[in-house]
Every structure is written in C-alpha cells, then in structure tokens.
C-alpha cells in the first residue's frame, strides 16, 4: 500500500505491535481531521522540536502515535493539571493539551477551569462531540437535550440531567485566558476556519502570551449512529444551535503583567544562613534529662516561654525538643507545649511525666498536675485555685506572674515573670545567663524589648516569693 506522508505526523503508527499507516478513528470522525490540522500547524510553524503534547484518555488517547513531537500521556480528566506541571517545568516549550468533552467537561472540569483561571501558559484543544466516544457513547455534559446516548436511551431529559455545558461561555467569565473560541470541522469551510484557530493557539504559546482554549465541534458517526454525512449535518444543524461558533475572546495583543520581583537568594546555604548560629548538641552523660510542660491560655506567651527554655538549652549545646499543641486546639483558647532537654539524643518526644510544670490557668493545672514525676516541681500562677493537691513528692510553688507583670505595666510579660520563677528556683538545669540570653534573643526583631524583659526578669526574681 502506498502511504502519503502527512506533515507533522509520524510515517507509520505502531499500535498493538502492528505497524500501520492509518489512524484508529472511525470513518467520518472529527478527531481524524483535527489531528491532521494540529500536526500540520505544529510542523508548518516549525514547532515540533519544542512542543510537548499532553494526551488525554478517550478517543484522543493515541495521538502520541500520530503527532511527531514529544508526548506525555495523562490520566483521564487530568490533562490540564498535567499540562500545568509541564508548562511550569518547561516555560520555554510549547505545551498543548488535547481533551474531549467527558474528559474536560466532566471529570476534569475543575482542573481545566482552574488552569484557565490561573492563566497557565498552555493551549487547550477541546473536542466536543457531545458524548463519550471511547467508552461507548454515554452522555457527556455537552450532550444535547433530547439526544440519545447509551446512558440516555430515551434522550437526554433536562428535567433529570440538566442542560448542555457551554465550556467557552463559562470560561469567558475568567480574566486570565487570552483566547477563547469555538470552531467546527463539519465541512470544508469550517475546517479552514478551524485550521486558522489551531495555528492561533500554537502562536499564542510560541509567544508565551498565556492560556488559550479552542473548542472544536466534531461529528461522531459511530455513536450518533449516523453515516458520516448525516453526522456532519447533525453537527452543523443541531450542535451549533446549542454551541454557536465564534471567537469569545481574543486578547492576544494585550500586555500581561510581569510577576512582581521578590527577594532572591544565591543558594540554599545563602537562603538558610543564620547569624550567630549555634553549635550542634553534644552528649553529656552527667546532665539529667528534664521534661517540661507549659500550659495556659493562648495569648499568655506559653509557647514562647517553652521556646525560651529550648533556646537556652541549645545555647548550652543540650539535645532539645519543643512540641506545641496545634490544630483546632491552638485556636480554641488553651495552649500548651512540651520541652525536652537532654544530655543524650532524645527518645520519646512526649512529656508523659513532667519534671517541671508551669501553669498559667486552672484548667491547665488540673489537666497536668496528676502526671508529675516524683521530685518534680509545679509552678502555678497565684490566680489558680489549688483544689487538687499535687502528687506526693511534688513541690508546688505559687507565683504572682500575672500580677507582677501588671504591676510592672507590661501585662504581656507574665511569661517572663514565670521564667523568673524558674530561674530563681533553679529547676531548669540550665544556667541563669543562658536563660537571660535566650530571653533577650527571643526579641531579636525588637532589641529594646529584649533588654526591657531582661530588667523585668531580674526585678521579678528579687521581688517574687
């Protein structure tokens, strides 16, 4: 058999181990014509080397056998999401997604719509033949009212299944797309218009103008159960009534805004470099591991008090772990965090039995006091009524953290007042200087506040009892 070389197409199509030179499309199918137009456009515009086609699942699944360019074969419905990844990964390439109406209109609608809304830089060729072809002629979102399909055997009833989905019209509500048009391949005149529109989609991608979608009405004689001529007539006389042809938007000449400049770093090392970074922890068998729990209301500085102890421990090169309450818990009013400080690598990150418990309110005290380790110490704010006795062998210290902070005129510093208690009681196993240094460092962004808190810490230590 003599083969005619087709521009942009491979010379033969090795499917199922057979090397053939005809496509898999049924006689009279719109896909065959569209495939030819796409291949021609890609070749004539000299874009075969830089084009990446994202192929769909559906009747267009085998386009990778036909178009002579690189291909990525996507999951059903996901070609627009895949094309998003592709065009972001290869901004210099021309990325073209090819999707059918079940694929784009139903399972993958949101992926296509959101890609359009983001203004992804790929072109989407969307073939609308009013039904699912490959899977056996079922109803698609684009099926016409009254149209018979294998899942609307009595005709599509809008009372039960709604009305045909107008993809171009819906996408026209979005700001980002630069080109939205609907064409048809039902007769020669329409095919010539479709050819120009397809070239336009490629041109927009070559020029990196932005997102373009071209809907193409296509006959499906097999599933329409018509001969090719009747199927083409159906396309023109019935489908076009519902889906009028035309250009919905052409803003290819518009200036797209450039992304705003953001600070750039030369390398990971430069990005993550820290001034005064601390040395790694070292092992010290002589240091007895301590487990801390801090609890109270959100806004009382509970998490930062825990962080302050953790940072002091790091200053002394202890192994350190900090863990906060999180999720709805952190938004529900109560806050707690755990800190583990050790002379050896830390095993369990949880604080089942605190050596030190710091409580700023009653629920916190009552929730955790029973867990204390024998020999441990509980520091509670004096506003907490002690209705539950601590376990035997646990020291209870009542401390006027909230009152002192108010008296100093800095009510937010109640946590610093608690730090003063911990320092005074010597219950952290850490040096006083480390605690102070860590406190000051926690106000890195507001150094004046850091010094102020150091003063408050010292005052509170003297004053509190």
């Amino acid at each position, binding site marked *: 058999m003599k083969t005619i070389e087709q521009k942009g197409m491979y010379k033969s199509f090795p499917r*199922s*181990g057979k090397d053939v030179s005809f496509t898999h499309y049924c006689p009279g199918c719109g896909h065959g014509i569209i495939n030819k137009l796409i291949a021609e456009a890609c070749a004539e515009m000299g874009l*075969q*080397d830089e*084009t*990446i086609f994202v192929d769909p699942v559906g009747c267009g*699944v085998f386009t*990778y056998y036909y178009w*002579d360019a*690189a*291909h*990525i*074969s*996507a*999951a059903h419905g*996901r070609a627009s*999401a*895949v*094309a*998003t*990844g*592709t065009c*972001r*990964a*290869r901004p*210099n*390439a*021309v990325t073209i997604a090819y999707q059918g109406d079940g694929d784009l209109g139903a399972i993958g609608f*949101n*992926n296509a719509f*959101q890609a359009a809304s983001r203004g992804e830089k790929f072109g989407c060729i969307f073939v609308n033949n009013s039904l699912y072809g490959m899977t056996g002629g079922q109803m698609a979102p684009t099926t016409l009212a009254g149209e018979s399909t294998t899942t609307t055997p009595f005709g599509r009833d809008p009372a039960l299944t709604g009305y045909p989905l107008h993809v171009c019209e819906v996408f026209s509500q979005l700001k980002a797309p630069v080109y939205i048009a609907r064409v048809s391949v039902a007769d020669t005149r329409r095919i010539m218009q479709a050819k120009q529109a397809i070239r336009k989609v490629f041109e927009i991608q070559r020029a990196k103008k932005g997102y373009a979608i071209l809907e193409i009405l296509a006959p499906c004689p097999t599933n329409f159960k018509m001969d090719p001529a009747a199927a083409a007539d159906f396309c023109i006389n019935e489908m076009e009534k519902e889906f009028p042809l035309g250009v919905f938007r052409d803003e290819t000449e518009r200036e797209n805004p450039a992304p705003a400049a*953001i600070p*750039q*770093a030369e390398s*990971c*090392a430069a*990005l*993550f470099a*820290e001034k005064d*970074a*601390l*040395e*790694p*922890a070292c092992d010290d068998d002589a240091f007895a591991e301590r487990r801390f729990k801090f609890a109270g209301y959100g806004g009382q500085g509970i998490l930062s008090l825990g962080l302050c102890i*953790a*940072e002091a421990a*790091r200053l002394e090169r202890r*192994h*350190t*772990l*900090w*863990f906060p309450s*999180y*999720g*709805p818990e952190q938004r529900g009013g109560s806050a707690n965090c755990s800190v583990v400080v050790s002379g050896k690598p*830390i*095993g*369990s*990150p*949880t604080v089942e039995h605190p050596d030190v418990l710091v409580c700023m309110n009653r629920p916190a005290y009552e929730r955790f006091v029973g867990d204390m380790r024998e020999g441990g110490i509980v520091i509670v704010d004096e506003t907490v009524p002690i209705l539950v006795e601590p376990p035997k062998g646990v020291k209870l210290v009542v401390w006027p953290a909230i009152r002192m902070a108010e008296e100093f005129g800095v009510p937010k510093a109640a946590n610093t007042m608690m730090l003063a208690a911990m320092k005074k009681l010597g219950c952290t196993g850490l040096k006083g200087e480390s605690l102070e240094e860590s406190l000051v460092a926690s106000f890195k962004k507001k150094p004046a506040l850091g010094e102020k808190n150091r003063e408050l810490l010292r005052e509170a230590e003297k004053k509190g009892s």
Partner: protein
Amino acid sequence: MTKFVKGNEAVVMGALYAGCELYFGYPITPASEIAHGAAKWFPMLGRTFVQAECETASVNMMFGAAGAGKLSMTATSGPGFSLMQEGISYLAGAELPSVVVNVNRAGPGLGNVYPEQSDYTPAVKGGGHGSYQTFTLAPASVQEMFDLTVKAFAMTAKWRTPAIVFADGLQGQMMESLVLPDSGLPKYDFSEWASEGTPKTRANLVKSIYLDAAQQERFNRHLQEKYAAMAADAMGEAYLADDAEILIVGYGISGRIARTTAEALRKEGVKAGVFRPITLNPFPREQLAAVAAGRKIMAIELDAGQFADDVRLNLAKAGLGAEAAGVVMINRMGGEIVSVDDAVKTAKEMLGA
C-alpha cells in the same frame, strides 16, 4: 551550624537542597507548614511554587513536571493522600521520579489532625491501582525530616518510582536542631526519557498505557524486578540490640518511644533493644532478622496493627517463623501516643518479669 526548626520546615529545606525545582500543593493540617515554607523559599531560589486546586491536581501537576524531566514534590496528610493515590499509580506506571510527603493525621474519614501512623498500608504497599511500589522512608526526627527528604529525591531519581516521606503530625509540628549539609544532590539529567520540549527529546513518550496484554505483562515484570532490586537500599537502625532478650520494633515517632522504653527497661535490669526501620519499602528485612533471631518482639505503632503485620510477614519471609508468631503489638490511635509506661509494662508482661 544548626537551626531550630519544625519538622515540616526541615522537609522544605531538604527538598531545596536535593534540587527539587517545583512544588505543587493543597493546604491541609498538619502538613500546611510545608506549603508555607515552599511558597516562600522556592521562589526565592528561582524555583516554582503552585497552589493546586485539589490534591488530584497536585499529583497530576507533578506528573506533568516529572514527565518534562524536572524533580517536583507535594506534601499532604491522610485525606489528601487518599486523593493522590490514582496519580501515584500513574507516576509509578510511567516510571516518573517525584516525592510525596504524607504527614499522617488520625483517620479514617475526616478523623482529626493529631498524629497517627494509620496510612501505613497506602504509604508502604502502594495505595493505588495496579502492582506498583513506592520507595517509602520514615523519618523520626527533624534532622531526618531533612535527611530523608534529600534521600527520597535521590531514591526516586535512581529507581524512577515515586518516593514517599512518611511522617506524622507530631514530627511535622515539633522543633529540634537541624544541621544543614555543605551541599545537596547533583543535578539529574532525564533527557533520555523525558519530554522536555527540546530537539533531543522530541521522540520521547511518557506514558503508563500498554494496550497489548503481553507488553503490559513484560512491563510489569520489569517493574517487579526493579522493586526487588530496591532492597539493596533498605535502611534500619538497631540500638542496644546485641544482648537484648526483647526487641522493640517501631518506626518514625514510635521508634523514638521504643528507644526511651528500652532505656527505661534497662534501668530496671531488663535487656531490651530497639530496631527502627528507616525505609518501610524496601523493608530492612535482613537487618531486622539479624537482631531479631531468638528474641521476643514487641511492635509499637499508632495504627491498628498494619505495621505489626508487616513485621510478622518480614520475619516469616526471613525464616523466623517462631519470632513472627510471637510478635506482640502495643498501639494507640486517634491522636493518642503510646506511653513509655504502657510499653514498659507490656514488655515486662511478655517476659513474665
């Protein structure tokens, strides 16, 4: 130099050091800090961050980026991980390198945002359709959240199957010191198979479809041979295991509880040791067998027993049927954590001590 960071932040840093070029993600607690860090740091290094419309989109965007020859990642938690399974199967089927981080929360369904290890089966056994496997790593510290994310990229590039970094809510949220390395991974060249939009890659085709049954079977056999070879990269860690009479097995956060439990038992004169798998697939079967023979074995986990069953399976496959039959599990679920007290008690009961 050390930094004090959350596990979730360490993951982003690891990805950047590893040369990950694109991040695609959808927010979900307790993994969201990974997206936050990526949104800030990827663009600062001239790399790409895209907030996807759903997890299905995230994983398919990764497919598109990987298909075009670039390393990319996403991070999620249980419900999002479920949504990604179809896409992970496609990535495996098309042999594309990509990294998915699952910061496990409690399930099933909406569950809650607290730590569980209950996504073990989909994270370790291939949760989507078809006979595929992922390379699954289980960090146990902030340092490992970094190190194993880097490793995940190295392994996904080497084996061309998706790598899963399988963490939990606790590890994502906790802060520890992180030591950053001097350099990351070398840049990979995937132009041999990727569709990059270049003259060299014009003939390339990325796909997971084999219409012919014989071709599909040949491809599946190739995948299975590849997965078998991955065993060479299995990693595990033994601690105090040499003279142990009881071996406590746990991964991730449970591995750390195992460590403290063993230390507590040793203080009471019980010879306890730990084995912590670092890769869950490939499972470090030989390493486990080397320290498990003749010992009583206790598995610690935050699920309903998926891990203990895998320990039994691996012991049995290593010829340690008696040890497998004797595995005792101690577990918590729902966001509760196994306490060292309970683990010590169970271990003593096992030993009749």
